[in-house]
């Protein structure tokens, strides 16, 4: 294996090259974060995103809504409707299972705990988790009243 050879005359150009690369990287970062400097300490914080998902991006100068954001808004509204339906369905199933379980457990023969009941409880646990996640991950298609959420567990 050959060792790399460093020639002293190459040092200066390589420094120039690395300086140019750093400048290019900074420029690329600036392009990748448009409007990053506009988010001052007083601006509202919505978690990871500077703007809530699905809310209209309006050009402040012209007041025109971008067509892409309209389509995105429609898509997010549809997702929200679907999420709501799914949440209602999960809650109905959960209530049905809880009623069945309660009837079975508090029946005349409480000594018989069956694996089927165990499966029902497991299903209730999963459904409750699903409802919680669906409500937590509400996609905002339209402006909504936001209640402060507790900080995420780490």
């Amino acid at each position, binding site marked *: 294996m050959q060792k790399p050879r460093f020639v002293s005359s190459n040092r200066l150009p390589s420094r120039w090259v690395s300086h140019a690369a750093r400048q290019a990287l900074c420029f690329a970062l600036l392009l990748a974060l448009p409007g990053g400097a506009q988010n001052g300490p007083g601006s509202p914080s919505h978690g990871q995103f500077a703007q809530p998902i699905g809310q209209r991006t309006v050009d402040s100068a012209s007041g025109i809504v971008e067509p892409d954001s309209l389509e995105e808004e429609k898509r997010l509204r549809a997702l*929200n409707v679907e999420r709501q339906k799914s949440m209602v369905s999960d809650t109905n199933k959960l209530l049905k299972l809880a009623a069945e379980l309660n009837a079975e457990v508090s029946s005349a023969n409480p000594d018989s705990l069956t694996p089927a009941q*165990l499966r029902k409880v497991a299903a209730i646990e999963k459904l409750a988790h699903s409802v919680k996640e669906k409500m937590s991950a509400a996609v905002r298609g339209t402006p909504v009243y936001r209640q402060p959420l507790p900080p995420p567990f780490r």
Partner: protein
Amino acid sequence: MRMRELQAKQQDYAAANAERKKQIADDSARLLKLATDLKAEVDKTTKDTLSLSVIRKADEIERLAHNVKEKMKLTVGGS
């Protein structure tokens, strides 16, 4: 002597199981109440609502169901 010890142990197991079954019955009744409350809360929401109450209730149901499941495992396995 050993017979008596065995009988005493069996009685202890039976008492523990009976207590656990009573707890399971109580927890099941509570689960039903929470599920009814959750349904009422979810019915109030729209697609644009972010309800903390629903999140809290669902979380409570999840935890309670987990507890009941663990108790049931012990009881079903032990009996």
